[in-house]
């Protein structure tokens, strides 16, 4: 069973990951109904606390909470008191005083969610911390892979691009390895450093080396905001060596799934024909994102254990 928080996949067990994915598969049905809402989290308050820009993840969490009938409120650094010099702890103390039940936080510093989780009684869900983890993204990626491939044990997933600065890649590496998949990386030496092999993955450099063996290829966005000067020459050169276009896709294993966590830089890491092509499951990832986040909120926002006898399920 999950504990109070979801900070990353690094410390999660196989049972917990499987429980989240199985639960998420059920929640997909709720979004298919005419009334896309169930009363499960009525009266609970979920705060999204984002210190970095995000559209998809924030909307996805917001929608997930609303479809479970929780009340949501958003806090973004660009429009908030952080601009006026407030520290993270002070912001959190103020939010705490308003009695929230869960905080979903994205922060440029790795470990920021962990600090809040230790200091406060409410549930903390990490929606991306620095270059550390982005667990809900990896979970929705794994759910999408499982939809197409079934059991992921023995499968090979290639992650291409700026793996070093990617919290999406890190969470996927932890999660996929626990489910028995093997992970192979490709990217320029500045972004795909050899020390990443300590995470139990293989590091290659040429994209063509990984495409022929992979069941799934996950293309990452170049995170210009995190790259140090000189780590990359031009987008055009990057695209030529590491971008996925139709010609490269033809060299890949037939039926390979093309994934991307978004937002896509069209023409850089993915050509438009591949991004919109028949092997792309990028929009399924987005749909699964809402289901995974509903599952997380459902599983984490449990109440206090009470003695048996309150159970009417026995009928």
């Amino acid at each position, binding site marked *: 069973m999950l504990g109070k928080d979801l900070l990353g996949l690094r410390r999660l067990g196989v049972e917990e990951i499987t429980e989240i994915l199985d639960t998420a598969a059920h929640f997909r049905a709720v979004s298919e109904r*005419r009334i896309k809402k*169930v*009363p499960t989290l009525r009266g609970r308050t979920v705060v999204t606390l984002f210190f970095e820009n995000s559209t998809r993840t924030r909307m996805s969490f917001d929608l997930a909470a609303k479809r479970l009938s929780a009340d949501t409120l958003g806090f973004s650094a660009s429009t908030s008191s952080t601009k006026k010099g407030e520290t993270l702890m002070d912001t959190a103390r103020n939010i705490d005083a308003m009695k929230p039940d869960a905080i979903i936080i994205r922060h440029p510093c790795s470990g920021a969610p962990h600090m809040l989780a230790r200091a406060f009684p409410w549930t903390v869900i990490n929606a991306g911390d620095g270059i550390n983890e982005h667990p809900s993204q990896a979970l929705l990626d794994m759910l999408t892979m499982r939809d197409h491939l079934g059991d992921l044990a023995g499968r090979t997933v290639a992650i291409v691009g700026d793996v070093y600065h990617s919290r999406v890649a890190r969470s996927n590496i932890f999660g996929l390895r626990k489910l028995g998949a093997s992970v192979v990386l490709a990217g320029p030496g500045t972004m795909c450093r050899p020390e990443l092999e300590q995470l139990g993955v293989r590091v290659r450099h040429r994209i063509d080396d990984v495409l022929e063996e992979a069941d799934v290829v996950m293309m990452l966005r170049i995170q210009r905001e995190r790259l140090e000067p000189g780590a990359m020459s031009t987008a055009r050169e990057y695209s030529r060596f590491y971008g996925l276009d139709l010609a490269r896709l033809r060299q890949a294993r037939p039926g390979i799934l093309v994934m991307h966590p978004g937002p896509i830089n069209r023409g850089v890491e993915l050509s438009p024909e591949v991004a919109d092509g028949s092997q792309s499951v990028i929009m399924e990832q987005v749909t699964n994102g809402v289901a995974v986040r509903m599952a997380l909120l*459902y599983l984490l926002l449990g109440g206090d254990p009470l003695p048996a006898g309150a159970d009417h*399920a026995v*009928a």
Partner: protein
Amino acid sequence: MEAWRAMTARDLDRTVRRLADEITERLGDADDFVLIGIVTGGAHLAQRLADAVARTEGHRPQVGTLDITLYRDDLYTGLEKPTLGVSSIPFELAGRHVVLVDDVLFTGRTVRAALDELMDFGRPARVQLAVLVDRGHRELPIAADFVGRTLGTGKLDRVMVSLREDGSDHDGVQIMRFEAPDSPDAGAH
């Protein structure tokens, strides 16, 4: 604690047939109503009722399922999160006559949750309730329209419906008694 069999497989079979007859007697042809079973026992019973209707009427009513987990009022009090099941109503509900099916009617809270969920799927013309066993101890103003058997039970007793569809090796209803029933005569049927 004592345990005994309240219904054998044959009792259960006869009761399902009688319930199916009562439903068609009061509601008409299989086209005139739909059966929606509450997961898991009620869902299996809804299928059995539909089969029984098909045998006598030559036509099978449509069947749906409701998993009420997300509509429960005790989600935060349980020791463990209940496993989610499937709610599937693959037909238009608006204007239909719904027979909600459950195995055991007890506090009425499950039925309350099921009614809430049903309304989120559409606006049926009418909803009635069919249960295999009514064991009393209602906590909400809810009553069944079709009752298989009324059993007098103590509030702490457990009523267990075994169905082959759930992996049981036999059909039947068993009571595990932890206290004397409220009204000893309530069990007579």
